[in-house]
């Protein structure tokens, strides 16, 4: 015997009352596995309406969220090149081509300038979908140019980090972007302009160990992975399981490396407050 029993025999819903469920209508949360409608999910700032897990979104979504309406994209003519003819299982230029096709982006960094809370702000935002948001020459150069733009136009500056770290296929060039971006941030600091570093899931490696940790104000989305070494590497090094919540935004806040954590629904308000102090 089954463990449940129908109260009435047969399916009683009339055909006209059945609901269509075309693809893309449902969003399944990666964390709580609960389903909700895409509409609900979008209206909830791309957060799970059930458990509030923040899904990964792209640079353009953040611009739409933060700027007061219109904004202008800058330096969108920079593209990566395979200067080292780097080939692992795939040649780097093929990887670039695939990434460009898949994402419609030219690289893992997009810069835009506009107003938020009626104050000027320049934002450099990373896209994880483009080779894991890895930092190569273009990412570094866009940050450098964005900082020059901020200094020239006296705007506040913000970076939205979302990256697995340096782009190995650019070897030492990617490593030197850590130095390059830090040198430029020092210039920005000397110009007495504020730099807000906003970390989102994930922010690791050379990105964390350079511009992400250098904000006048460092803040992050809830439950984002933020760290220097990846959890797998640490587990292999110390040969122990990592404690729960290790390398999350909450962990970093507790250890004194973040100023605050912000829910995506409050993001515009928070940044709007910040720009008014400076």
């Amino acid at each position, binding site marked *: 015997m089954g463990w449940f029993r129908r109260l009435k025999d047969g399916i009683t819903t009339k055909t006209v009352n059945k609901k269509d469920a075309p693809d893309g209508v449902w969003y399944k949360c990666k964390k709580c596995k609960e389903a909700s409608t895409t509409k609900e999910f979008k209206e909830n700032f791309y957060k799970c309406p059930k458990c509030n897990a923040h899904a990964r979104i792209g640079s353009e979504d953040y611009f739409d969220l933060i700027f007061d309406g*219109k904004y*202008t*994209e*800058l*330096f969108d003519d*920079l*593209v*990566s*090149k395979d*200067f*080292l003819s*780097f*080939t*692992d*299982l795939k040649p780097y230029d093929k990887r670039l081509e695939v990434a460009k096709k898949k994402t419609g982006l030219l690289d893992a960094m997009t810069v835009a300038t506009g107003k938020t809370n009626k104050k000027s702000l320049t934002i450099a935002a990373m896209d994880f979908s483009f080779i894991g948001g890895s930092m*190569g*020459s*273009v990412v570094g*150069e866009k940050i*450098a140019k964005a900082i020059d733009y901020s200094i020239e136009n006296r705007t506040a500056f913000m970076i939205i980090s979302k990256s697995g770290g*340096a782009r*190995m*296929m650019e*070897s*030492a*060039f*990617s*490593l*030197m*972007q*850590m*130095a*390059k971006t*830090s*040198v430029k*941030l*020092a210039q920005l*600091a*000397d110009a007495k302009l504020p730099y807000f570093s906003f970390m989102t899931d994930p922010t690791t*490696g*050379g990105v*964390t*160990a*350079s511009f*992400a*940790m*250098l904000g006048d104000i460092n803040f992050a989305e809830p439950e984002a992975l933020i*760290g*220097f*070494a990846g959890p797998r590497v*640490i587990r292999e*090094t*110390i040969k122990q399981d*990592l*404690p729960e919540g*290790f*390398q999350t935004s909450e962990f970093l806040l507790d*250890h*004194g*490396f973040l100023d605050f954590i912000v829910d995506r629904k409050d993001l515009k308000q928070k940044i709007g407050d910040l720009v008014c102090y400076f």
Partner: protein
Amino acid sequence: MVFLEFEKPLESLYEQLENLKEVGEKGDIDVSDKIKELENKIKSERKEIYSSLTGWQKVQLSRHPERPYSLFYIREMFKKFTELHGDRYFKDDKAIVGGLANLDGQTVVVIGHQKGVNTKMRQYRNFGMANPEGYRKALRLMKMAERFDYPVICLIDTPGAFPGLEAEERGQAEAIARNLFEMARLRVPIVCAVIGEGASGGAIGIGLGDRVFMLENTWYSVISPESCSSILWRSWDYKEQAAEALKLTADHMLDFKLIDGIIKEPLGGAHNSPEEMAKTLKKHLKKEVAELMEMTPDERISLRVEKYSRMGQYDTLKKKVAVKSK
């Protein structure tokens, strides 16, 4: 003597030489000519091996167990050296050493990664992998140098910053980032030299400077060849290919204009004649420090900014309008 894999032809020659010397010592036969001949043969063989080293072979050389480390160079190069300990926040990191030193009359602050010379010391030095307190100690010393107008010398030799649990808790990323930021605008000269391994953030954390040099048989990369192999090839077996692909040798780095010069090593590598290596290194450092001391702090900083701002390889799309409105 430790022979690396690619030095195997030398090993048998050395064995022959030893045997010959033994025969000579026993008496009757005069083998001095033969010894000389063999010594010349060793020299030319070594020259040949060393004239065409691959990336991976240089990585092996940079890790040679007999290779001199920072404290050796420090003792050889400076008349006086006073080691200073601790970051003043948490503890003293043994993987980064530093202190005040006298470079032929000029007081300098010297900082370097330090590896251990035997099993016990290797553990004590954490294999040259620094924790956040190491980078913070380095910064404390640099700030002191700035206050007294002393040049800073950094010796780089690390397989990477330590990827440990406590390192993350104490902000490994923040410590490295802070150093980069402060070194960018430090008002005194900074001269860096990679003396062994230059792996990633752990290396550059004390590696941003007015002049950066690499010893001939060292490497500098965003990741070690082994880790690169494991991530990109999904196996540990492609380290040779990874070492080639990463183009991590001093020649490549100079070619890319990511470093300012290469310092020649004695034939057979630094470990073959450590004192000679120390002398050469000292000569270079002295010259660079003297040159940099001639400039004003503002001149140095603006050149430093320019240098790092130029680093990067990318294309610019050919289109008239670079700004698009949304």
